[in-house]
């Protein structure tokens, strides 16, 4: 065992860091730092840069355009982009659909879609959840009826993240309603501009537009958009979910939030002294840091094992649970550190170009909002309760 980064790995870190310094525009990292609303173009700018550099699909196999990095290098890469305050890489195409197509797509689909993902030509959305099918995803009701050369799709998806930017959506649909739910599901690729597709915004508790309802009314989808075999979509859906889970643990995000927390606690005052000098509060920070320290190693153990070909099974569930709790804890302590400064809420502060005086320190503005927004991470990607069910079922033999 050796927990030091090797010289080669440190060199790699410098390479990523320098590249980010050269290519990430200052205005964009400032926006990310201030939690300002990002436009579609903001996301695309960063992803196009990654694309040009050949780093967008950093965990794909090399033959499909991946980077060939090992688990540690991938981790370093993820850490550096968070540290540099780059926008997040929109995961739906590159992290979710990509691996599914590589594993289960036809040659024709791979040849058409994978390069488009590598070049950011399509913005993908994830059409899994429905109003009646959340945790029990297999109970979904959207139907795709065989009409010879095409399917006719009817139904509704919901919670579709950034669906209002999407060009395409991968959907789980019912192609057979007369069998056990899991056996009648297919995995379908749908153009968002097909007639009959309608996107309606859902406003979240923090007043933001991030998720949507997507409605399908008699939408014609060519047969060639079916991934894999008809009625075997459930297998592909689950395969995708293991990739989705791993990303949510968000170790790099928690690390950078922890640093932010320390900064805020040095500036916030309690009883005339910096809050960080308060023994109780600094103990809370220390315990959070201990959790995170352990989790980083846990995370690396898991991704390294996965790289050696062992599927990231149960561990990815454990990591998702712990990762989300730790990340939520950072937002909680940040909120607490602010004291009454957490109260003001200026929605316009998150618009690009806002240049009024903030209320209180500039860092205060987004903190309470972030705390509430981050409640989502223990709900999506398979809720933490569902992860526990998965682990218990898979490993206890009860």
């Amino acid at each position, binding site marked *: 065992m050796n927990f030091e980064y090797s010289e080669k790995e440190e060199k790699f870190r410098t390479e990523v860091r320098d590249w980010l310094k050269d290519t990430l525009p200052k205005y964009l990292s400032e926006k990310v730092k201030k939690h300002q609303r990002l436009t579609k173009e903001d996301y695309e700018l960063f992803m196009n840069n990654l694309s040009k550099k050949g780093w967008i699909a950093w965990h794909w196999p090399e033959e499909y355009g991946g980077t060939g990095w090992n688990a540690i290098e991938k981790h370093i890469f993820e850490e550096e982009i968070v540290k540099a305050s780059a926008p997040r890489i929109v995961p739906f195409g590159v992290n979710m659909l990509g691996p599914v197509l590589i594993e289960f797509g036809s040659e024709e689909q791979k040849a058409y879609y994978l390069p488009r993902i590598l070049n950011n030509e399509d913005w993908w959305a994830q059409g899994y959840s429905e109003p009646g099918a959340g945790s029990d995803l297999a109970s979904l009701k959207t139907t795709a009826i065989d009409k010879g050369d095409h399917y006719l799709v009817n139904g509704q998806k919901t919670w579709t993240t950034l669906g209002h930017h999407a060009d395409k959506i991968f959907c789980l649909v019912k192609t057979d309603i007369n069998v056990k739910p899991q056996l009648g599901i297919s995995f379908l690729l749908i153009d968002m501009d097909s007639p009959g597709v309608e996107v309606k915004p859902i406003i979240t508790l923090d007043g933001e537009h991030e998720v949507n309802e997507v409605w399908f009314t008699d939408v014609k989808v060519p047969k060639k958009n079916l991934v894999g075999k008809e009625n075997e979509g459930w297998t592909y859906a689950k395969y995708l979910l293991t990739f989705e889970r791993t990303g949510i643990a968000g170790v790099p995000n928690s690390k950078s939030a922890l640093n932010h927390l320390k900064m805020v606690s040095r500036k916030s005052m309690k009883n005339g002294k910096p809050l960080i000098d308060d023994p109780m*509060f600094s103990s809370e920070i220390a315990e959070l840091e201990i959790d995170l320290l352990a989790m980083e190693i846990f995370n690396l153990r898991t991704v390294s094992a996965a790289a050696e070909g062992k599927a990231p099974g149960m561990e990815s569930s454990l990591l998702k649970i712990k990762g989300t709790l730790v990340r939520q804890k950072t937002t909680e302590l940040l909120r607490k550190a602010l004291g009454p400064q957490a*109260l*003001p809420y200026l929605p316009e502060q998150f618009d690009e170009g806002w240049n009024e005086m903030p209320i209180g320190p500039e860092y205060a503005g987004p903190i309470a909002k972030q705390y509430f927004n981050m409640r989502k991470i223990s709900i999506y990607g398979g809720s933490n309760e569902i992860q526990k069910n998965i682990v218990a079922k898979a490993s206890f033999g009860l």
Partner: protein
Amino acid sequence: MDFSLSEERKMLQETIARFFENNYNDIKKRTEYLNMNDGFSKKFWKESSNLGVISGLISPSFGGLGGSGEDISIIFELIGKSLCIEPFLSSGLLSSTILSSIKNPKTELINKIIDGDLLVSFAHMEMNNRYEDHFVESKAFFENENWKLNGCKSFVINGDSADKVIISARIEGEINDKNGIGLFLVDNNQINNRSYNTIDGYRAAELNFNNLNAELLCKDDLALECIIKANSAGALALSAEAVGIMQVCFDLTLDYLKTRKQFGKSIGAFQSIQHRMVDMMLEIEQVRSAVMLASSTFETNSSTRDKNISAAKNLVGRVGKLIAEESIQLHGGIAMTWEYSVAHYAKRLIMIDHLMGDADYHRDRFKLISST
């Protein structure tokens, strides 16, 4: 001991409950009220006054009909249940507490507050002074037979629409001296204010003032006593409000667990979920008990009063977080939406921990009082 409410109080409770239910029955209405000029509904405020809700917060010695710890708790629990944003705390309780605790109580002003015709906000907090009672940086000085104030006050609830403001300012000493603080009454129209909404849907303001003419209400020991009393009354009221909110969160969650079906049954049928509901339930009973104790000792000598209030507010902070987070989690995605009320209850519940002392502040204050 007697844990039940008197007949009279029960009636008060029922009347106010019905009135709130009729006027605050959905979350859209609350947003509509918040977006009005004053940051609340003046009409609702006036009707509350007619019904005796404001006078219920004020002792008969000053023209009210209530003012006991129990009265305050009953009313604020109902305010919590409806998520009502009218100035019951700022004007109805904090300011009237101060105006009635000074040497020559301002009964006339209190009566106008009771009638809903005068709004007075209490401006004590400053940007970097967190929750302390005696940290005051704004300055007061006496010049040409007049008191004048310089400084800034932060997070002043209803600070934009108030007619008058009570401001704490330092006459002498260092920022954290217990002595040397004065409380002053000023006309709000002389103040430069910047108003905004809070994350939990209240209207607040930053007040900036320079050579502002002010009337001295009290100073030194009495001023500090008034601040502590107002903040304690506020902490009690917020604790009771939190009880109301927690109950609604619990009820909404339980309802949802019964109706939402996944895997062929209601999600409430899963035992792991039931256990969490039981945890929530018992913690709410703990808070309710602590708030009852705190309200029963509200009128006693100040160390018992403050110890019990700190116990209640500390529990509210800890349990509030549990209830807010669990209510969202157990609902799933639906609780993340603006449209559904539970998110608004959760936000208010969490932000109550950022007013009048958080769980840590009250834990420390409890330790201090218990050890002396």
